[in-house]
C-alpha cells in the first residue's frame, strides 16, 4: 500500500524545475562556427528552418550573431533550406 507521502514521488520531481541556460560556445571554447557543417547548425533552427531565438538556445550575443551568419551562408550553399516543413 502506498501511503500518502509516497504519492508525491510518483511523478517526476524535476518536471517543474528550470534548467540553467548557458552559451555552449563559451563553455566549450568553440571559437569558429563552420557553415559547411549543416548537422551542427541544425541545432539552432526550428523545424521550419528558422533561426531559434537566443532565449531558447542560450547563446551569448556574440555567438548568436556568428550562428546567424553561418546559417545564412549554409542556406546560400543549399546545405540548409530557406523554407521547409518537418525539418527535424
Amino acid at each position, binding site marked *: 500500500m502506498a*501511503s500518502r507521502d*509516497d504519492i508525491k*514521488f510518483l511523478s517526476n*520531481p524535476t518536471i517543474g524545475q528550470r*534548467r540553467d541556460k548557458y552559451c555552449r560556445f563559451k563553455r*566549450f571554447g568553440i571559437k*569558429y562556427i563552420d557553415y*559547411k557543417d549543416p548537422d551542427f547548425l541544425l541545432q539552432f533552427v526550428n523545424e521550419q528552418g528558422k533561426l531559434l531565438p537566443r532565449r531558447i538556445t542560450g547563446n551569448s550575443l556574440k555567438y548568436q550573431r556568428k550562428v546567424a551568419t553561418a546559417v545564412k551562408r549554409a*542556406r*546560400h550553399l543549399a546545405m540548409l533550406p530557406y523554407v521547409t516543413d518537418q525539418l527535424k
Partner: protein
Amino acid sequence: MRQYEVTFIVDPVLSDEEIKSTLKTYQDMLSKEGGEIVHTEEMGLRQLAYPINRRNSGVYYCVEFKLESPSFIDKLELSLRRDERVMRFLTTSLDKYGVKYNDDKRKGLIGKQKEEDKGSQQDEQKAKSDSGKPKTNEKEAVKKVVAAKQVLEAVKDSDDKDVQEEE
C-alpha cells in the same frame, strides 16, 4: 596576407573530367595570380536542400587559399559567375579562429572534440539528473525502511497477541 575560402557547387550532370577540370581552372587561376593554395577539400556529391537550376544534387568543392591583395577576389568571383558549370559559390575571408579550425579539421581533431563536447554535455546532464534522483531515492528508501519496521513491529505485536491468545 589574408586567408580566404571559396566554396562552389558544380553541376553534377557534367562528366567527371569536366567537373575536375572546373576545379583545376580555378586552382590554376589562383596560383597564377600569386595565391597560395592551402588546401582543397572535395566534399563530393551532396543532396541540395532545395533545387538550384532544376538540379537536386551538386558536387561541392572548397578551396582554401592565401592572397596578398584582395583585388583578385573580384576577378575570381566574376569568372565563377560567368561559368555555367558552377551552380553556386561563396567566398569568405577567414579570421584566425577559422584558420585554426580548418587546420584542426584536417588533422582530424574537430570531430573528436565535438564528441567530447557532447559526451561532457551528456555527463553533466546525467550528473544533474543523478543529483536530483539520489535525494528522492534516499528519502524513499528511508521511508520504506521506516514503513517496513512499522510493519514488522505490527506483525510481531500481532504474533505476540496471537501467541498470548493461544496461551
